[in-house]
C-alpha cells in the first residue's frame, strides 16, 4: 500500500496548488523509494523516463511559426472576419468548430486542430470578437470564460470524435489488450460503439454552448451589469 503514497502526494499537491512540477518530482521519488529502489536508482529511473518521453514536448516546435503569424496580425484578421458576420455568436461559432473538429477527428485527421495551432491564434480571438461585436468590450472575467470555453470545445470534440476512427491509438490499445487476454474483437465493432457517445457529446455540449450565449447576453447586454456582477 505504501506504493500508493505517490498518488496521495499528487492529489494533495494539486489540491494545495503547489507548483505541479515540484509535486510530480516528489511523488516520483516517493513512489520509487516505496518500491524498494535506493535514491540513486530512483533519480536514474526518473531521468530515463524523462528522456524517453521527450517526444511529447516536440509539439512546441510549432511556436515560432505561430508567433510569426500572430506578429503578422492573424488574431486581428480573425477578429475582423467575425465582427463582419451579423449572425455569429460565441456559442454558435464554438459549436461550428466543435462539429468540424469532431468530424475531422472521426476521419483520423486529429492534427487539424489543437490549442497552440488553432485555439490560441484563431478560435479564441474569433469567439471573443463574436461577443464583442454584440456587447462591446468584454469585461476581463467574461473574456477569460470565453477563452476557457474555446479550449474546452477543442478537447471535447477531439476526445469524442477520434474513437470513431478505427486506426486511432485508443482503439488499437483496446484490441491489443483484449487480444492479450484471449478475447478477439474487430476494431470496427469498437468504433461503432463510439457513435452514441459522440452524438451525446455534441448534443450536451451544444446545449451548454447555447446556454453560455444566453448567460453572456444576460450579463452583458445591460451596461450596469457588465463587470461580472452575475454569479
Amino acid at each position, binding site marked *: 500500500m505504501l506504493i*500508493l503514497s*505517490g*498518488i496521495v502526494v499528487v492529489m494533495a499537491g494539486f489540491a494545495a496548488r503547489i507548483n*505541479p*512540477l*515540484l509535486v*510530480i*518530482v516528489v511523488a516520483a521519488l516517493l513512489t520509487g523509494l516505496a*518500491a524498494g529502489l535506493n535514491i540513486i536508482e*530512483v*533519480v*536514474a*529511473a526518473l*531521468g*530515463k*523516463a*524523462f*528522456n*524517453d*518521453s*521527450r517526444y511529447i514536448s516536440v*509539439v*512546441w516546435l*510549432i*511556436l*515560432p511559426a505561430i*508567433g*510569426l*503569424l*500572430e*506578429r503578422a*496580425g492573424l488574431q486581428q*484578421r480573425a477578429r475582423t472576419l467575425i465582427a463582419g458576420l451579423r449572425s455569429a455568436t460565441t456559442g454558435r461559432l464554438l459549436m461550428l468548430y466543435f462539429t468540424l473538429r469532431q468530424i475531422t477527428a472521426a476521419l483520423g485527421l486529429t*492534427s487539424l486542430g489543437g*490549442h*497552440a495551432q488553432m*485555439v*490560441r491564434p484563431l478560435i*479564441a480571438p474569433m469567439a471573443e470578437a463574436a461577443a464583442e461585436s454584440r456587447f462591446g468590450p468584454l469585461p476581463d472575467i467574461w473574456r*477569460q470564460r470565453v*477563452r*476557457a470555453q474555446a*479550449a*474546452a470545445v477543442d*478537447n*471535447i470534440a477531439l476526445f*469524442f470524435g477520434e*474513437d470513431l476512427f478505427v486506426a486511432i491509438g*485508443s482503439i488499437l*490499445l*483496446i484490441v491489443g*489488450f483484449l487480444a492479450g*487476454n484471449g478475447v478477439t474483437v*474487430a476494431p470496427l*465493432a469498437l*468504433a461503432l*460503439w463510439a457513435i452514441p*457517445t459522440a452524438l*451525446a*457529446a455534441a448534443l450536451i455540449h451544444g446545449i451548454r454552448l447555447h446556454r453560455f450565449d444566453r448567460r453572456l447576453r444576460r450579463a452583458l447586454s445591460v451596461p450596469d451589469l457588465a463587470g461580472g456582477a452575475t454569479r
Partner: protein
Amino acid sequence: MIGLGSVYLVAGLMFAGFALASARDRSHPKRWGHAAFWGLFALSFLLGDRLGDLANGALVIALVLIAGLGGLAPARPPATAATPAAAGNTGSGLGLLVTALAIPLVTLAGVLAAPRLQWREMPLIDPRHATLVSLMLGAAVAVLLGLLLLRQPPRAAVDEGRRLMDTVGWAALLPQMLAALGAVFALAGVGPVIGELAGRLAIGGPYASVVAYGLGMALFTMIMGNAFAAFPVMTAGIGLPLVVQAHGGDPVAMGAIGMLSGFCGTLMTPMAANFNLVPAALLELHDRHAVIKAQLPTALALLAFNIALMALVVYR
C-alpha cells in the same frame, strides 16, 4: 532517413535559441533563470541519449528547482506582437491563410506520404515516427512561408517563439513530466495494486459491476491523467473478471464504452496537463483550472450517459 534524432536536434536547437535570446535580453527581470531553464531543456534534447540516466535525473531535478523556486518570471505583455498592425505590418489575408494552413496540411501530407517516400529502397521518413517528423516539417515550412509571404524578419521567429514559450512557461514541461511519472508508477507496480484494490471493492451484481467499471475508469484516469494507462488496469481488475466472466457481458461494448468513460475523466483532471493546464497557460487565463471548470458539466453528463449506455447494452 529523417527520424526522431533529427526532430530532437531541431527541437534542441530551438530551445537553445530561446535560452540564448533570454540571456541577451537585458530588460528581462529573470533573464538568467529563463536562460538556464531553456538551456537545460535544450541540453536534454541535444545530448539526452549520451548523458546517462543519472545525469538526466539530475537535469530533471535542476529544471524543476528552477521552475518551482521562482526562477521564471510570469508571462510579460507581448513586446512585439501588439505593434505590427499599427506599423502597417499586417500580412495579406492570403499570406496569413496559406501560412496558417501549412502546419496542419504539411503534417497531414507527411503522415500520409511517409510510407511511400523512398530513395534507393530507404524510407525518407522513419515510419515509426512519421507524425513527429511531419509536424517538424510542417512547422519548418510555416516558418519559411512566414518569412517569405508575411515578410517577417528571421529574428522574429526566435523572438516570437520565445514570447509564446514564456507565456506557457514551466507548464510546457508538465506533459512530459507527467509521462515520466507514469513510467515511474509503472516501474513501481502501482497499476496492479490499484486494480486489485478496485477488484476487491467492486463486489456485487451485474449492474453494480458496470457502474464500478465506468467510475473506476474515470477516477483512475483522473489519477494517471491518461485513459490509456487506466484501461489495462481497470479492465484487468474489474472489467474482465466481473462484467465479462462473472456476469457474461459483451467485451466489445464494455471496452469501447469503458475507454470513453476514461476520456470523461481526462476532461476533469489537472494530470492531463497537455489538454487542461497547457491551454490555460497558452490562453493566459488567471485560473490554472479554468478549462477543467468549463469542461466539468459536460464530462459528468457524458460519464453518466456512458455508464447508463453500458448497463443497457453490455448484457444483451
